[in-house]
């Protein structure tokens, strides 16, 4: 079955999502939202993989996507655990407050 959406368009979307994710990470101060934005970036990469896989008509892209999902899940779970701890310690989720180490 021939796709009606061209690869370029999908890649463009993926790139857009990726840049949006970057922007989100940079702009947001709340750690949860930062994690969220990172997820967006990861998914953008996943999308790119899927698109690439479909270009070469291989399943590899989709396999990769599943791996990415799994990895993102693991990451988020640890991330959330850490966020809990941070909230516990700092009573805040503002990333800019986490500046104890520098120099």
């Amino acid at each position, binding site marked *: 079955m021939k796709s009606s959406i061209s690869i370029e368009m999908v890649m463009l979307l993926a790139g857009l999502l990726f840049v949006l994710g*970057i922007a989100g990470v*940079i702009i947001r*101060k709340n750690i949860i939202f*930062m994690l969220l934005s990172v997820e967006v970036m990861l998914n953008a990469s996943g999308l790119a993989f899927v698109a690439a896989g479909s270009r070469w008509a291989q399943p590899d892209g989709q396999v990769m996507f599943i791996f990415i999902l799994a990895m993102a899940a693991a990451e988020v779970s640890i991330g959330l655990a850490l966020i809990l701890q941070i909230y516990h310690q700092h009573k805040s989720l503002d*990333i*800019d407050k986490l*500046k104890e*180490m*520098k*120099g």
Partner: protein
Amino acid sequence: MNNLLWLVPALPFAGFLILALAGKQLSRVWVAMIGAGSVSLSAIVVLIIGISFLSQPPANGNYSQTLWTWMQVAGFNPKITLFLDALSLVFVFVITFIGALIHIYSVAFMADDKDYSRFFACMNLFVFSMLLLVLADNLLLLYLGWEGVGLCSYLLIGFWYENPANGYAARKAFIITRVGDTAMAIGLFVIFYQFGTLAIPDVLAKAPVLWHQGAQMATITALLLLAGGVGKSAQLPLQTWLPDAMAGPSPVSALIHAATMVTAGVYLIARMHIIFQLSPIAQMIVAVIGAATLFIAGFSALTQYDIKRVLAYSTISQIGYMFLALGVGAWTAAIFHFMIHAFFKALLFLAAGAVIETLHHEHNMFKMGGLKNKLPVIFWTFLIGSASLAALPLISAGFYSKDQILWYAWASESGNPLLWFIALLGAFITAAYTARMMILVFWGEAKTEIGHHPGKLMTVPLIILAFFSLFAGFIELPHNFGHLTLFSNLLHQVLPEAVLKAGMNTELQFQILAFLSTFGGIYLAYIFYYKQPQRIEKLKQSGFVMNLYLFWFSGWGFDKLYNVLIVNPVVFIANINKSDVVDKLYQGITFVTIRLYRFLSFTQSGSLRWYIMGLVIGAIIILSIQIML
């Protein structure tokens, strides 16, 4: 006799070693015995050698003894070789003989000094170095002696080290002579590359072969050697150290700064006379330097109040005469004057030392006076010395030596009337300041109480020296007055005869002029300092005279000139650069590094969002580089 030669320098050196290593443990008597004894023994050895040399002149005109080869590098192989010919013999004789007398004198003179053994150690070392200087067969060994005497001069000028002024004078002497020495060292380089050796006989033998008359190389070499001589002999323009060198004990002044070391320049030029002969220009410069020095120093001597400074300037002036003689080619006259001068100047210094000691270390002549009757021995010996210095006609040795020089300054081939006139003027001034000194010290009323009288150990050397100051002149009499040439005959084995201009045979007129100038000088002093001292006061009213007086008094302002031109700038640069400007460069690097660190560490702000920004910017840079290229 040949193999006794090494004993001459070795004896004083042994004395030095014993005194330096064990001086603290020895009693004063032993110190004196070793100190004076070693030099006296050396004098006896010289006497033995000298007699044999004179009675059975060696075939080639010299004794030489090689002790060992100093080093052998690439064709440069100076040996430690002693070499004695007539010229050296005169010097060796003067050094050991006068040296021995001065040592004996010092036994009494220094009797109360706490550094008795140090004094004799240095004196012995000096005699050793000086002997090495005149006995050296090659220029490098000569240079060793040359620097060695400089060292001893330094040590002895600053002998009373507690006073920083003495130390300053000592360093001044060393450093100024070092300037000349350095030039001389360069001269040695030139000689080595020209002749491939530094051995004096070889150099002298090769020079006329290699260089034609007036060769440029000869001039360069001669001038470089001259620079060494000028430094050591306190001639213009390196004369400023000698008056200050009077800070040392009087025997030191007598031995080093009158009789021997300061005449090393004369020896060097006489020794290397062939090179000088090859360069008329250089020889002319020698003569001019001599004339100018004798003139300048004479006027300075006229204005001093410190008795030793008077004698110091007079020494400079008298060596000026010797240089003048060397410059006009009157080699033997110069050496003759050297010998006579050694006698009378040593005498004068020793006598002055005795006076100073008797007057409780009073140097100022204006505070002396009236000693004529109180210290008869000193007075008479001093008078004889002064007569010789002033070249009192006929009866003093100084007359015969100086007269020769005056005559040659006019009559020799390279002499000229101007030189002669300056020399004559010099003789006039010499007589004036000598008479002034005599009058101030011995006539008039006593201004300072005298202490104890000098003992036998001090007076006997004075008397012996006075004897020579009177009679040593008779071994060399003018043409028209006995024409005795014992001394020059001896020296003509080594040194050439002075060549006279054609038609010069009216020596008598010049002698009369010299007569007149001497008496004129004495009369002048008599008028101003004895008869009518108020005239001096009157003269001092005038600003011009006063300024002139101060100008002469300060040695024609040379010290000030050198301070302004050389010393102060160097010291200034040294002091502002004390912390080393180059280091600032590295401090700058450190500074930049630390600034960079500060900046970079500022980027490590700890803010996660900032880090992400950094990461993104890095990514953008990389991607844009990749896309662009």
